[in-house]
C-alpha cells in the first residue's frame, strides 16, 4: 500500500498539468516527477496519475511500458546505465560493461543484493565523443577506463 501523494507533490503535479492545453500532455512529466519521488511507479501510482491526467489506468500503463526510462519496480539506490551502442563499443564499451558486471556480480537488468546499484544497458546517450559512457542516475560519465569505473563504483557503493 503506497502512501498517497503528499500535498507538496500534488501541488507540483498541478503546476505541471496547468502548463498544457490538454491534461493528458502532462503524463510524461508527471510520471518523471512521481518516479523521482518514489523511485519507481507502482500500480497505485498509475491509478493516481491516471486520475490527475484524465486518463484510464490502462492508458498510463501503455505509456509507462513504452518508455524505457520509467521503472515499474523499485531500483537500487543508484541506477547505472551503461551505453552499449556502436560508438561506445568502438571505444571499449563492452569491456567496461564486463568489468562492471564482474565487479558487481550482477547482469544488466538486475540490482545488487545489497540494494545499492541497479545495472542497465542503454542505447546511445548522445555523448559519443566521450565514449565509453555511462550515466549514474542523472550524471554522465565519459572517457571511462577500468580505474575510473572502479572509482565510480566505490563511490556509489558507499553506505
Amino acid at each position: 500500500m503506497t502512501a498517497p501523494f503528499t500535498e507538496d507533490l500534488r501541488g507540483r503535479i498541478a503546476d505541471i498539468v496547468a502548463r498544457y492545453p490538454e491534461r493528458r500532455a502532462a503524463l510524461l512529466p508527471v510520471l518523471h516527477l512521481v518516479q523521482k519521488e518514489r523511485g519507481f511507479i507502482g500500480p497505485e501510482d498509475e491509478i493516481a496519475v491516471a486520475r490527475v491526467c484524465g486518463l484510464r489506468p490502462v492508458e498510463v500503463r501503455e505509456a509507462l511500458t513504452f518508455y524505457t526510462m520509467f521503472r515499474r519496480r523499485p531500483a537500487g539506490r543508484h541506477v547505472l546505465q551503461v551505453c552499449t551502442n556502436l560508438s561506445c563499443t568502438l571505444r571499449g564499451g563492452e569491456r567496461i560493461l564486463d568489468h562492471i558486471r564482474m565487479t558487481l556480480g550482477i547482469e544488466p537488468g538486475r540490482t545488487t543484493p545489497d540494494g545499492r546499484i541497479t545495472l542497465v544497458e542503454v542505447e546511445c546517450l548522445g555523448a559519443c565523443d566521450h565514449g565509453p559512457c555511462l550515466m549514474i542516475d542523472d550524471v554522465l560519465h565519459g572517457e571511462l577506463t577500468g580505474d575510473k569505473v572502479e572509482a565510480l563504483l566505490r563511490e556509489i557503493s558507499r553506505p
Partner: protein
Amino acid sequence: MAKIEIDGRTVEAADGSTVLAAAERAGISIPHFCHHPNLAPEGTCRMCVVEIAGAVKLEPSCATIVREGMKIVTASPRIADARRSVLELLLADHPIDCPICDKAGECRLQDYCRDYGLSESAFGENKTRREKLFRIGDRLLLDRERCVLCTRCVRFLRDVAKTGELGVFERGGRTEIGIFEGIPVSDGYSGNLVDLCPVGAITDTAFRFKTRTWFLEPKPSVCPYCARGCLVDVDIHPGFARHPETGGILRVRPRPDATPAGPWICDIGRYAWIETESRRVRRIVWNKEDREAVLSGDRAFALLGARLRALAETGKGDRLTLVLHSGLTNEEWTDVAEFLGEFAGRPRVRIADPVEDDGDGFLRTSERTPNRRGAAASGVEILPFHPEDDCPHTDLLIVFAGIRGHLDFLERCRPAWSGIAAKALVSPVLTAADRDFDFVFPCAIPYEKSGSYINCDGRRLEFSAVRPAPDEVKAEGEILRLLRAEVRRTAEGR
C-alpha cells in the same frame, strides 16, 4: 464524387472515401487485418497495400483518400510480394495452433496464406513464447502468441464501446495487448472482440473447443432480447449422423448488417440463449395432485381445450385471463386476436414484460422485449398484468412466459394465483413456479419462430425459424391456434 481508376476500370468514388472502401464498393476485396469499416484507419498491418500511379512506395489503401483521377492497381506481382512478406512475418512468431484453434475456417491469416500461396515458413529461429491463456474478461481469453497486433480490439473498446479496457503495452517485438489488473473487459460488448479479432487470439470460453466452424450453418434471425432488433446469424450444428445430440445452436453472432451502428450485438444478445437452452422445457407436463405426468400433445390440448370450451360455451370468456408478453411476433398477435374471437365474454388480456432498466446508452434499449410496438399495433386491447386485481376474477389462467423467464415476476404472482382453479403455463424454460400450474406447455424460443417484429426505430424486421422446435415444443402462436381449434372443434361438431 471522384472518378478514379481501379485495376483498369473507371469507377465513381464518394469524396473522402478511402481507396479500400472505393474498391470494396466496386466489388474488389483488398485483404487486411487492422482495417475495419467501423473503426478509424490504422494503416499498420501493411496488408492492404496497393500501387498508386505517381507514388514511389506501395500505399495502404485503408488510409489513402481517393482523389480525382487517381489510378490504382490492387493486384500485381509487386503487391503480392509485399503481402506475402507481411504474412511471412506474421507467421514468424505465430504458433502452429490451427489444429486446435477455434478460429480455423474463419481466420484471415489462414485464408490469406492460402490465397497467397504460403505453406512453409522460412523462420529458422526460436519463436518467442508468450502467455496463451491470458484472461482479459469473464468470458474472454487472449492468446498472445496468436495475436497479430492489429489493435482492432483495443480500438473497438476505446472508440465504439467507449470502455477502453484493453491497452497496448511494451514496444517493438515485445509489444502485447493487456489490461490493467482489476479492470478487465466488462460485460457489455465484449463478445464483439471475438468477431473482430482476425485470428484466434481472442476466444470465447462459451465457444472454445465446441466445434469446427465449417460444420456450422449460419441461419439469419433477429435478436429477441430487447427492442433494437439486431440482425444476427444463429450458427447451427446439424448434428453428426451417429451423434445427433451434437446438433443445436452453438453460437449467435451479429450479421455484417446487424445494426446501423455497425456489425455489433451486445453480450446479452450474444450469450443469453446459452442459459435458455440449458433450461429448456421439452415435454408437456400435467401436474395432477402431487404427481407429474407427461402428456402427449393431443391429450394435453384436448384437456385444456375442454376447459376453454366450457368457458366459451357458457359465455364466461371474461373468467379467462391470458398473460402474454411483448416477445410475440406481429403474426402471433393475429393468432391472439383470432383466439379471443372465440369467446363471447371478453377475456382479460394482460402483458407481463421484464422490468425495464436504463438500457446501456448504445444498442441495448431499456425495453427488454423485441416487439412492444407490434403488440400496440395489434389492435388487441392489452393492459399490464396486476395479479392482485386480475386473479380474483379468473377461473382459468394461461400464462405465456417469455424467454426472460420472469423468475422474479413469477415468484411475486404465486400467492395471487394460488386460488385459481385451472392454470396453464407456456414457457420455454423450467421455472420454480412450474408446480403451481396444472399444465406446463413447452414453448419455442424466438429463434425457432418465423415472423416479424417492429423494432424501436419502427422498422419491421422479418425472420425465419433457424430450426424446427424440438419434441413437443411449439411457438405461442401455434399453441393459441391449436387451442382455438379445440374450442371450435366441438362447437362445430355439435
